[in-house]
């Protein structure tokens, strides 16, 4: 079984966001990167299936050569090889990202293709589904559990207010939701082995973007809050706020 896991490196959640001097990008000079958490969950799920069914895991990233660092970390967690499609635009529009990934993936044979359900920097929630549409493959989004049986994948997925169990033929695209698997820690042995695993950088032609970033801004400051009081004695004042100011009682 060949599983491909798409990985995005994103600024660490604790990163302070500073808007760049052009007013439409963030200043990346002091940013620390990490693997987007849902991609890490997707990788852990792929490793679990590999342990059961064998086969290989390929990592795929669209990004700069520096993404090697995050990919080595993923290789240490159990993937077998990695490919970077070289791109120096950190703010690429998801429509363009998807056509570039799909154009490379159309040359690869795989059984399962994973994405995080969203990347936690741009919060777009669209690349996995767009790639599935471009490749004309079934897609199971927000998967919380998967099993593979012969040529079929069965998955649990989160739906609004509930859960669904679905099945699809392989090859299939999965977008990972929390719960699909637990992110792995790399062992020392894994880290050593990762250094020797193949990591290929491929030049790829950039495709046209569909959205243009006009400007970036800091969210308006919230109005100064008010402490209504301390402990149970403050409950009547809070209830008065709910009733008279917020009018929800």
């Amino acid at each position, binding site marked *: 079984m060949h599983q491909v896991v798409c990985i995005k490196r994103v600024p660490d959640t604790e990163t*302070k966001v500073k808007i760049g001097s052009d007013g439409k990008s963030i200043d990346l000079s002091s940013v620390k990167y990490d693997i987007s958490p849902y991609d890490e969950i997707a990788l852990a799920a792929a490793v679990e299936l590999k342990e059961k069914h064998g086969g290989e895991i390929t990592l795929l990233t669209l990004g700069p050569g520096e993404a090697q660092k995050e990919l080595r970390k993923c290789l240490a967690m159990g993937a077998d090889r990695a490919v970077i499609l070289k791109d120096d635009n950190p703010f690429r529009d998801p429509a363009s990202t998807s056509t570039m990934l799909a154009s490379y993936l159309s040359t690869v044979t795989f059984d399962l293709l994973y994405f995080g359900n969203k990347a936690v920097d741009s919060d777009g929630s669209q690349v996995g*589904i767009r790639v599935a549409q471009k490749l004309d493959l079934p897609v199971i989004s927000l998967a919380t559990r998967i099993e593979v049986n012969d040529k079929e994948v069965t998955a649990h997925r*989160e739906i609004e207010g509930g859960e669904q169990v679905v099945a699809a033929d392989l090859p299939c695209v999965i977008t990972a939701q929390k719960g699909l698997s637990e992110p792995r820690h790399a062992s020392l042995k894994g880290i050593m082995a990762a250094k020797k695993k193949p990591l290929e950088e491929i030049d790829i032609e950039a495709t046209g973007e569909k959205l243009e970033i006009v400007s970036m801004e800091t969210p308006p400051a919230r109005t100064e*809050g008010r402490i209504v009081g301390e402990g149970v004695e403050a409950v009547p004042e809070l209830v008065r706020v709910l009733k008279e100011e917020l009018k929800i009682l």
Partner: protein
Amino acid sequence: MAQGVLAYVEHRSGELKKAARETLGEGKRCATTLGTSLTAVIAGNNVEGLTAAIHEAGADRILVVSHPSLEEATTDGTGRAVVAAIKEADPALILFAATAEGKDIAPYVASALDAGLATDCVGLTIDGDSFTAKRPVFAGKSLINVKPVDLPLVASLRPNVFPVLSEPQTGSPEVVNLPFDDSHASRLRIKETKAVAADKVELTEASIVVSGGRGLQAPENFGLIEGLADALGAAVGASRAIVDAGWRPHEEQVGQTGKTVSPQVYIACGISGAIQHLAGMSTSQTIIAINKDQEAPIFGIATYGLVGDALEVIPALTAAVKAAKEG
């Protein structure tokens, strides 16, 4: 030449979802600004009965795709039905709600149309015939304004941000029934759907959310949160800390790796307010924080704060809310 505005309408248990009425309301406002009309698309099984409600919520023209295989919304099946309908209308602007369903179908549709998609928008402006969408990025630490390079623009709208029409639209709509092409059916085989009770308030769409965190000290104390939520008619949320600890299911998690909510009132009980949590609720209109640590970051963004132990304050608050509602 693309023109007009189109809105995808979500429904559940034979009724329009609130997020759908918001999408239609914003769609109507955009159509009015552009001097054009609003077309709605509804897909499902036996959904013809919803056209009157869709019209009242803002649509001038309604495209109905009704077929047994659309009984449950799917990314590809519903997606293809919507794409076929959109080709009938040739709109310049296509709106979805940024709910789980909308976030599923919008990317499929945008990809099929080779269009840009602005996810989870909190603002939409029209200047002449040019659109700008505003959306949060980096866990809500920044907002970006994006413009489409060409039309159509697809946008999904954050629930509870855009108002519904203030007055129901009168008159009667033009209703067009569209055929469903069997080759468009989903390639997923749905084995089972476990839906929670229809009367339960959905977290992402709720007007009031009551959330609990580690300050509750033990999983059995979460009943206090449910009690307060019941008294207020609110949905229940949870912090990542207590979801990771296994106290609550992930579907209740609010935050960067959970749901994004934007209710009228968000009540955070025993939640310190890590950036990961703030990412999921910082656009709430009013934030009330109950926490015994006066220095907790949650007080930095709260509109109203009560410094106190959630375990003591919540029972008193629940009783007082019930009394106020009865009185």
